């Protein structure tokens, strides 16, 4: 029983990382209706920036804050320069832009930092807390704390500030938002900035568990897609719940379904994506696509 609980907690730790990347996907989808295939690569690039800061001797947490600020600005810039021109264009055009961004960011990271793997410092101490037969690593706890704090801040922003209210207005009815005087263009850029920031958190948290290299996020992105599909692409809370569920499912499958093992684990998100699309395409928390009057 303790072993089972332990697996769940480990799963939540992994799930928190998927949740933050899924949240980034959902934010962009809500604001611009774009499925951003480059979200993982943007997170990877942010992680390299953090690595660069720490490699220069900067303390980790300062590097984190600076990286998040740079990511925020970078996300806004991408929206202004790349996404704005294709706003309202055919869906395929937008998909191509986001795939192009994927390839470009990936190549740029390889060009700047090479494709050799790098060690990324783990900000959390190595030990573990033992209580009631459970052993929970500081690393897992740290991840849960950081992601929890980020989600909490986002919640405050969206629910309790005027800017957050404006952002939700733009996400639900951009036309009407313009009429009440919200600057929709800037709000969309703000959404991209926030998404890039939240995504960066997932990259920086996952990097110590993997190795830092330009393709680091490809697996995480698939899990994040599963999480967003499960929770519903139009529900930020759903994306978070979906991420946690996917993380736990993956960990349990790896531990208990012997035939799956660690090699086939990557199949778990794909099964989830397919299952959700077949049974409940709008996701657990999403609204069914009904025509609005």
């Amino acid at each position, binding site marked *: 029983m303790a072993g089972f609980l332990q697996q769940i907690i480990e799963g939540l730790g992994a799930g928190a990382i998927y949740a933050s990347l899924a949240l980034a996907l959902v934010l962009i989808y809500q604001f611009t209706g774009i499925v951003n295939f480059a979200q993982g690569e943007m997170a990877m690039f942010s992680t390299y920036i953090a690595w660069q800061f720490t490699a220069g001797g900067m303390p980790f947490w300062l590097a984190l804050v600076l990286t998040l600020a740079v990511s925020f600005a970078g996300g806004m810039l991408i929206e202004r320069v790349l996404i704005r021109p294709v706003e309202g264009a055919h869906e395929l055009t937008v998909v191509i832009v986001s795939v192009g961004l994927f390839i470009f960011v990936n190549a740029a990271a390889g060009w700047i930092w090479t494709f050799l793997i790098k060690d990324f410092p783990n900000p959390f101490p190595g030990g573990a807390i033992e209580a009631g037969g459970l052993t929970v690593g500081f690393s897992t706890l740290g991840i849960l704390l950081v992601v929890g704090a980020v989600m909490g801040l986002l919640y405050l922003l969206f629910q309790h500030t005027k800017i957050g209210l404006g952002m939700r*207005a733009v996400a639900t009815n951009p036309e*009407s938002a313009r009429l009440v*005087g919200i*600057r929709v263009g800037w709000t969309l850029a703000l959404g991209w900035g926030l998404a890039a920031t939240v995504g960066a958190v997932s990259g920086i948290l996952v990097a110590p568990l993997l190795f830092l290299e330009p393709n680091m996020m490809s697996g995480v992105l698939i899990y994040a897609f599963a999480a967003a599909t499960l929770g519903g692409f139009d529900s930020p809370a759903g994306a978070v719940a979906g991420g946690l569920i996917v993380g736990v499912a993956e960990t349990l499958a790896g531990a208990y379904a012997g035939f799956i093992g660690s090699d086939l684990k990557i199949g778990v998100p794909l099964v989830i994506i397919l299952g959700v699309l077949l049974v409940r395409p709008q996701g657990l928390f999403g609204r069914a696509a009904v025509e609005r009057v």
Partner: protein
Amino acid sequence: MNERAGERGADPGPPGGDAFLTVTDLHAGYGEARVLHGVNLTVGRGEICAILGPNGAGKTTLLRALSGMVRVRGAVRLDGADLTRRPPDAVARRGVAHVPEGRGTFMPLTVEENLRLGAFVRRGRGEVEADLERIHGYFPVLRERLRQPAGSLSGGEQQMLAIGRALMLRPRLLLLDEPSLGLAPIVTRELFRIVQTINEQERTTVVVVEQNAHLALDVAGRAHVLETGRIVLSGSAERIRADEQVAQSYLGYRV
């Protein structure tokens, strides 16, 4: 049609000549599609002005042009200030509130959030709180539903919410696009009564686009008839009501 405009349609301007809104030779459209072909009209300070016209005449486009939502050529002046080609947020900041066709409700947001969004460009928290109260005075049903998602309101309640949202701006000019759309006649009449009260109590100038010409001419001081992107007739509500062609086309009887 031009002949008709020249003969009877030229805008004599509001009585007393105190024009609050002046639109001069306004052209607007969507891409290649030209919709407005040189609209001229004036609206007096504090008056209710009705815009009548058939489907597709460009009534919605005219309101969108006034609030900066479409690109225009020509001139729009509000109380002497030039509003031409200003973005919607700048126009809102000048006190123009626009209730769009279809109400523009933020469906998943609560009724209260919808109302607060109306005050988005305003500063001064205390005043905004006081205005929430004021709007509950006009629309008591909204107070009972403050925490509900706006999408759960009935059509009539949503239209009240839309007008309430517009009032949160403390507008000097209120633009209403077919407030009666989809509403029962009795609800529409109630709504127009409230608009009239708002106009009287707050001296808000109102431009209302309306298919229900009877109702619009009842509350309006003056009216303009828009056909295929041009004003073909302007005048006092009585004068418009007495016009033979208007009677045939919009009122359903012969004078």
